[in-house]
């Protein structure tokens, strides 16, 4: 049996599969349930300064089994109410990572202090929610904003700080590098990819908010590309997110450079039991390939990939002399 325990900086995880933020994350019992179902750790819903209802429904649109669009609009009970949910999850023994979102560095710092006080093992900063005006991409797509926010948070808490990176950018690695400069212990990538659905009979967007974020299998290649690019640029550990629904998907992320992964939309296919299956599948895949541990797979695709690129430059191949 391959060893699945992994470390993201100083954070020890019993296996690499984390419950992604926004999934089963509003109630403490749900967080505890995901832990009980075998997750290596659970990330809370992104919590803000005060209660937010989020956007009206429709908030989700499904594309077969390969994708989902959502615009929840960051519903959350607010940092005053939420600690009692975390308490329930911690009492169940879960490794809990607290996710927060805000509009500016100061707000993030305040939230971070309060979230850290609940006893969570780490913080994840949602710098990348693509559909809440004034939040998310607007703060998360400028490297200097990212650096400033991360620094402000790192100054006020002792637990590891994870910066969650948006894919809606020309250069995700630059954002990760900014987070690293700011003192982040790790980065996670990716949040959802900006998308929109239209109903032609109603002549309107399906989601009440119009724009939403794409998740599920469709974005796995996008997440892998971001993790790949970030791995080439920064030294802090990476948590991969986006479209993971099998153990092999997770292994692809590990080989692209992730030390752990988050799982969100896959929970809609067969429920929270997905964690037990992912653990089993990853262990089997590593075994088949003769890789003794999840950690040994991290970044494995980079050496081969690089060699290729060097060996066959575009200039080399297959241009015949003009006829």
């Amino acid at each position, binding site marked *: 049996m391959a060893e699945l325990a992994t470390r993201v900086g100083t954070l020890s995880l019993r296996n690499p599969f984390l419950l992604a933020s*926004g*999934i*089963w*994350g*509003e*109630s403490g*019992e*749900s967080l*505890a*349930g995901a832990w009980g179902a075998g997750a290596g750790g659970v990330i809370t*819903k992104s919590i803000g300064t005060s*209660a*937010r*209802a*989020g956007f*009206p*429904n*429709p*908030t*989700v*649109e*499904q594309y077969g089994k390969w994708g989902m669009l*959502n615009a*929840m609009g960051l*519903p*959350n*009970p*607010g940092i005053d*109410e939420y600690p009692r949910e975390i308490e329930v999850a911690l009492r169940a023994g879960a490794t809990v990572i607290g996710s927060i979102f805000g509009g500016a560095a100061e707000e993030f710092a305040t939230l971070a202090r309060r979230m850290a006080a609940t006893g969570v093992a780490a913080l994840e900063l949602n710098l990348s929610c693509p559909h809440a005006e004034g939040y998310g991409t607007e703060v998360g797509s400028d490297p200097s904003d990212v650096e400033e926010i991360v620094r402000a948070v790192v100054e006020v808490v002792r637990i590891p700080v994870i910066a969650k990176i948006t894919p809606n950018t020309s250069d995700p690695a630059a954002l990760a590098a900014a987070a690293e400069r700011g003192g982040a212990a790790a980065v996670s990538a990716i949040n959802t990819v900006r998308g929109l659905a239209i*109903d032609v*009979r*109603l002549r*309107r967007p*399906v989601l*009440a908010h119009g724009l939403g974020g794409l998740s599920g299998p469709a974005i796995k290649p996008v997440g892998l590309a971001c993790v790949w690019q970030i791995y080439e640029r920064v030294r802090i550990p990476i948590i991969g997110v986006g479209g993971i629904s099998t153990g092999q998907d997770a292994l692809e992320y590990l080989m692209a450079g992730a030390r752990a992964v988050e799982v*969100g*939309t896959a*929970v*809609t296919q067969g*429920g929270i039991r997905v964690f037990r299956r992912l653990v089993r599948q990853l262990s089997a895949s590593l075994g088949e390939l003769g890789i003794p541990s999840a950690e040994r797979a991290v970044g494995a695709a980079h050496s081969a990939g690089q060699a290729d690129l060097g060996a066959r430059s575009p200039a080399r191949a297959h241009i015949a002399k003009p006829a």
Partner: protein
Amino acid sequence: MRRVVGVTERVLETPSTVTLRFPFSPPAVPGQFVMLWIPGDDEIPMSLSFTDGETKGVTVKAMGTTSAAIQSIGPGTPVGVRGPYGNRFDLSPRRILIVGGGSGAAVLAPAADAAIARGSRVTVALGATEAAELLFRRRFEGMGARVEVATDDGSEGTHGFVTVVAERLLATDSFDAVWTCGPEVMMRKVAVAARASRTPTFCAVERHMKCALGMCDACALGPLHVCVDGPVFPAEQLLAIPEFARWHRDASGRRVEFGHR
């Protein structure tokens, strides 16, 4: 998958309750619900009050802005429908007591219909604020159920809560199952009463819903998610959850105590 369909029929069931019928071909069973989208307004969970054939139906009580807006929807209006979602009533018991309050009858009526068609005997305890608000009374009678009513204002039947009728029926008659839908405090009372006679009881529960896919956590009820684990639960399971009939969550996920009835 979401479908946009035109409403084909609109029936005023009571002064505050309207049934909308619409073409929707996916098969459904009593207990299941759909997410009903009123374009430009909201998308809300609605039990199917008509589950058979190609033309399904929902029966909506005016509660807030969207359900009020639904009251004025007429034939031809396009609505979005996705589902059906959720689980079902087990139709096998022979003698069934149904206890419905408010719009609860919406989900109980097709279940009663199906059970009677299978040969079960159904007794209905139906409650409402006043006689005119007794939902699906004629429908239950028409399918051959025995119906006993209660009204808050005493305008018909027992004066008071439907739980009083239910308690009396449970004390005097024997049932193989109790099905109930209505305010949680009411359902808890029914469940507690049925416990005395060890009658298996099933409650159809409502929680705030967004995704209906078991993902967003809006509908969390203790360790359960009403959208995928429910909406129909054995009462024993619910009575073991401290928050049942005590509080639910609003759209932000905050805990909100139920008003006492």
